[in-house]
């Protein structure tokens, strides 16, 4: 990644579902967006405004119908499925609303998982790093617990540790606090900000909560598939 290049660059991103004119649903109408390294941005907007679709496109889980998307300076239009998967694994961490941990694995194994995917085998260094990350999200001593043995807030902390395990320059969080009580939500949000300040990881956080959006560097408001305001 070139120094000073934006982490994320979207130009004229459109997305529609259905090929037939009659049933076509246009979800995104030309999104232009730039996110710099180390930025902490909120993506806000009402339900059905296209936030999740935009996040999926940025997360390389879906391809846009039109437009240009560059992640870490790499143009994604020319990448095949394998290339997208590799770029996703290395540059993007995900935190989902419903944590989405693997129930068959312990907390520490869940955190190690992206590293195992990348390097194919678990080793002591991975375990050490995973333990460090768990400590950083305040879960020392919970390494061997299964997701089902943790509270909602703790599960989300594990998910954050997992998102950070490959040291990605960008973390996408889809309503990370949406499923938590206000107290836990504040804690999780604070943790994300802390990580952002400490490691310079850029965050794009989808949220419904205007209180949280106000605490971000940058809030992008999406309505009906268009950016209506971007406050810095």
């Amino acid at each position, binding site marked *: 990644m070139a120094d000073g290049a934006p982490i994320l660059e979207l130009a004229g991103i459109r997305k529609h579902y259905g090929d037939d004119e009659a049933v076509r649903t246009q979800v995104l109408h030309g999104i232009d967006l730039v996110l710099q390294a180390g930025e902490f941005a909120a993506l806000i907007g009402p339900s059905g405004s296209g936030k999740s679709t935009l996040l*999926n496109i940025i*997360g390389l*889980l*879906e391809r846009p119908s039109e437009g240009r998307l560059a992640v870490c300076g790499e143009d994604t239009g020319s990448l095949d*499925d*394998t290339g997208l*998967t*590799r770029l*996703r*694994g*290395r540059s993007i961490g*995900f935190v*989902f609303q419903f944590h*989405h*941990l*693997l*129930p*068959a*694995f312990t907390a520490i194994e869940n955190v190690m*998982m*992206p590293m*195992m*995917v*990348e390097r*194919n*085998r*678990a080793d002591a260094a991975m375990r050490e790093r995973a333990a460090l990350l768990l400590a950083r999200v305040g879960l020392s001593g919970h390494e061997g617990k299964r997701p089902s043995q943790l509270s909602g807030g703790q599960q989300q902390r594990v998910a954050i540790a*997992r998102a950070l395990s*490959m040291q990605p320059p960008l973390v996408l969080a889809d309503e990370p606090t949406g499923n938590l009580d206000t107290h836990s939500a504040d804690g999780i949000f604070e943790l994300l900000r802390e990580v952002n300040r400490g490691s310079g990881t850029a965050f794009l956080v989808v949220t419904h909560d205007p209180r949280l959006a106000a605490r971000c560097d940058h809030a992008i408001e999406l309505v009906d598939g268009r950016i209506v305001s971007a406050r810095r």
Partner: protein
Amino acid sequence: MPFEWVVAIRFLREGRMQTVLILAGVMIGVAVIIAITALITGLQGSLISRTLGTQAHIVLRPPDDLATPVLPRDGAAFAARVEKRAQRLRSIDQWQRIHAEVDAMPGVTASSLMVTGAAFAARGTASRAVALIGVDPERYARIVKLPENIVAGEYRITPGNALIGADLASDLGVSIGDKLRVATAVNRDDTLTVAGLFDMGNRDLNRRWVFTTLSAARNLLDLPGGVSNIDLVVTDIFQAERIAREIASRTGLKAESWMETNAQLLAAFENQTMTTRAIRTFVTLIVALGIASVLVVSVVQKQKEIGILRAMGTPRGKILWIFLIQGGLVGFLGALLGAGLGAVLIQMLSRLVTDAQGNAIFTPDNDPLTYVVAVLLAAVVGLLAAALPARRAARMDPVSAIRYG
């Protein structure tokens, strides 16, 4: 352990009940395959050894006497009807040379010169039609396990002595040491002492066979210096027919293999083998369908996990392998258990399948190769059965997997 293995094993352990059930299914399938293979192979094996216990694998005889028409066929007159010649007892021409040649043939393990012909055995006023067999006792013992079947007296074929069947002995009322008069159609007779009685497990043979020395038989049958047939034993019994054909074409003799003599038995074996193969094929198919259906369900249940793994950068190929490994593992482990159960089943079957006297009628064929092949086959079948569900998992769209999972 590589990533795919770690995840595959964890998924299997997580789906406890499903895994246990499918392992049980594979186990039973493999056990049935192993048991039925051992049962049929064992049954066939003991039937063959019973059949071959009383006969040579190949018998060489002189070619048939042919009538040669003396009138030229292209002339004005020819014989309209050529009578077949009666086959008299003859010696194999140049048997010394032929014997040496066939004895040295690859695949032939033993050979015995024989002088065989029809005779009467009489004692007092009782007489019976018998088959007089002149043999070299040492060589003949390698063709038919006669010494093992001696029930009284001893295996001693020396000048002036004879071995007869237990049933003939009781018919004629003779026992060990008694004299027996043997007469033939060529008006020769001899008095032989009964040295031993045998029981070949076949009444007919016990009534008909009378063994004596080669020279005594030659003398009685008027075959001076001759040999009426040569009996052979071969290494691979199923090569007998091929070897017989080769000998026939090389020597011009009539060569009859046990396979020709027992064509009915062989046809029955073939049908049995085919039935077994069909059963094995269908059981394998059922096992494969079982594994596939469990994995299809597992792929649906694991949709969310697959989506998460994909979002974390797991390539499609690895997702594919996670499910292929599960299929292969289930096949392999189930087959290992099945091999154990199969061994137990075989023991039970060999005790259950008995003859009228309650003796086991077959020794199960416990070939370790059967187990190895069954286990490996099950692993491969598991892999193949997993192919479809695994492809489905690999093609899953991560977004919908996460959203709807």
